[in-house]
């Protein structure tokens, strides 16, 4: 039906990802104003039960061995078919390692426009509008969602995942579809993250370092602060990419999500991919030389100063306060 809002369910190894519920919440919100149906599209093998708590009016379920894990080639073939048959008003994907792999390809194949980085929707004059985040979160772009069909990739933050859940299970339609053939992508295996002695997601106090740390030698200063606080060091992506800290210490979209009591963000700009992983921290104190750094939008306290100047002084004062 032309008004429908489709949501591609993202799941990995038997677990539905949080972005799926954010997308369902967005779809519900839009549907409330239009009379549209929220249709969850679930691809997998033996995966129907995953749909039990979806806040959707109906679930289109495609079951096949080739859909067991996420394989872009297989998903593309099945989704192209489904979207051509149904022509929804909006088809929502996650702006993730799953959704972003396929939304663009579908945009070209179907000739439907694509909007990426969408944080929320709004209805104005009876027309749906997108609000997307670009330039590392520094700029928002708002516009009409083109008709008749538009693909959208969504980022978290605009809706609570809880609003995408329901206590009553939606109707599940097992659909028929042409079997995926000629697949050029296959999944060998999953590789778990390395298990180290520190699980940052369990630590109440985190000292997080970003690009502002400058050089590997400077990390020692941050370590001293973490020690003084009885906390643990973690980092944003650039520091881990340099090989200065292990992947297990990475906070953000591709790393871990953390909710500590205290999060000290040192020399971290606050790009959306990082903030996604730490915005629920109870107390966030941010230090950055750039007063316009997006981290200050999520922190409760901030200081415009070079972390290298602040670190030794802060460590000293904390040791003094503790030592008494």
């Amino acid at each position, binding site marked *: 039906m032309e008004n429908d809002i489709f949501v591609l369910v993202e799941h*990995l190894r038997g677990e539905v990802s949080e972005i799926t519920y954010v997308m369902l919440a967005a779809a519900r919100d839009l549907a409330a104003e239009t009379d549209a149906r929220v249709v969850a599209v679930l691809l997998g093998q033996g995966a129907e039960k995953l749909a039990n708590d979806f806040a959707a009016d109906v679930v289109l379920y495609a079951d096949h061995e080739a859909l067991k894990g996420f394989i*872009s*080639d297989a998903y593309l073939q099945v989704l192209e078919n489904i979207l051509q048959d149904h022509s929804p008003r909006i088809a929502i994907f996650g702006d*993730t*390692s799953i959704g*972003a*792999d396929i939304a*663009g*390809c579908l*945009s*070209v194949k179907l*000739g*439907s*426009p*694509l*909007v*990426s*980085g969408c944080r929320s929707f709004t209805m104005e004059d009876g027309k749906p509008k997108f609000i997307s*985040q*670009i*330039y*590392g979160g*520094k700029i*928002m*772009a*708002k*516009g*009409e969602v083109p008709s008749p069909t*538009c693909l959208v990739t969504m980022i978290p933050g605009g809706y609570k995942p809880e609003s995408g859940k329901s206590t009553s299970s939606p109707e599940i339609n097992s659909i028929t579809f042409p079997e995926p053939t000629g697949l*050029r*992508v*296959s*999944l*060998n*295996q*999953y*590789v*778990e*993250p390395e298990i180290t002695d520190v699980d940052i997601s369990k630590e109440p*106090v985190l000292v997080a370092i970003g690009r502002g740390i400058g050089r590997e030698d400077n990390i020692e200063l941050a370590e001293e602060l973490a020690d003084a606080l009885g906390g643990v060091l973690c980092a944003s*992506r650039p520091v881990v990419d340099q*090989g200065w800290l292990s992947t297990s210490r990475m906070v953000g979209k591709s*790393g871990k*999500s953390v909710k500590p*009591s*205290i999060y000290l963000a040192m020399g971290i700009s606050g790009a959306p991919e990082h903030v996604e992983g730490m915005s629920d921290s109870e*107390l*966030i104190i941010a230090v950055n030389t*750039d*007063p316009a750094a997006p981290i200050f*939008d999520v*922190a409760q*306290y901030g*200081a415009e*100063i070079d972390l290298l*100047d602040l670190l030794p002084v*802060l460590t000293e*004062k904390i040791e003094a*306060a*503790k030592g008494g």
Partner: protein
Amino acid sequence: MDIFVPVKLVPDLVEELEIDNSGTSLDRTFLRLMLNEFDEHAIQEAILLKNRIGGQVIVIAPDYDGVDDVLYTAVARGVDRVIKLNGDFEGDVNSHALARIIAAKLKKFDPDLVLTGVQAHDSLDGPVGALLSAELGIPYVGYVSKVRMSEGKCTVSKEYPGGLMAEMEVVLPAILGIQAAEEPPGYIAISKIRQAMKGATIEELDSDELNCSGGVTPSRMYQPEVGEKATMIDGEEDAIAERIVEVLKERGIF
């Protein structure tokens, strides 16, 4: 093995970003452009691959303001050929348009492997890699941080949240969206870049007219209104440190 790396330049986020008078676009007057960070990783991963298996790395970039420096730096890093696409790239050039003109050129080269950055922060219509894959009719895997080649295919590590990886196999020809190179791009001495400027030639190709359909034009661009911005602590390091200690005490950390 010829490895093609299409790259783009994006506004440097270190600079203040201003919206133009129309309110629908960035003010490009004082905008500084830099190589898209993820494309830099794609170049690096291509060079690492080439060093292991032999072949050539060919970087292709639209003629943005400042692109020559970027291309010479790529040569200094070990890229074998650099190609500039002539055309007007002053205004808003979306991913769909870029994918079309790059695809038109790549079709002539018939590449085995294309590496490109998994995303770019200025895009409102998704990453170029996925669009390029549909234009060329070859498979795409994004969020890749490791590539190994074997006969007729490549094995890649695809990243998922929480540090989870999926080892995927992709039949060639293929496009990979690079999240991070196995070893990060290092510092390149200015002397090496100058050497590249003397020795290397930037090939030029004419590109087709830009077709932006598939992307969207925003009706409004603005800086995000923030609910509650952080309470900023003034002063020098002593005053700031003292206030932070106070705040932490209030929260019962001591």
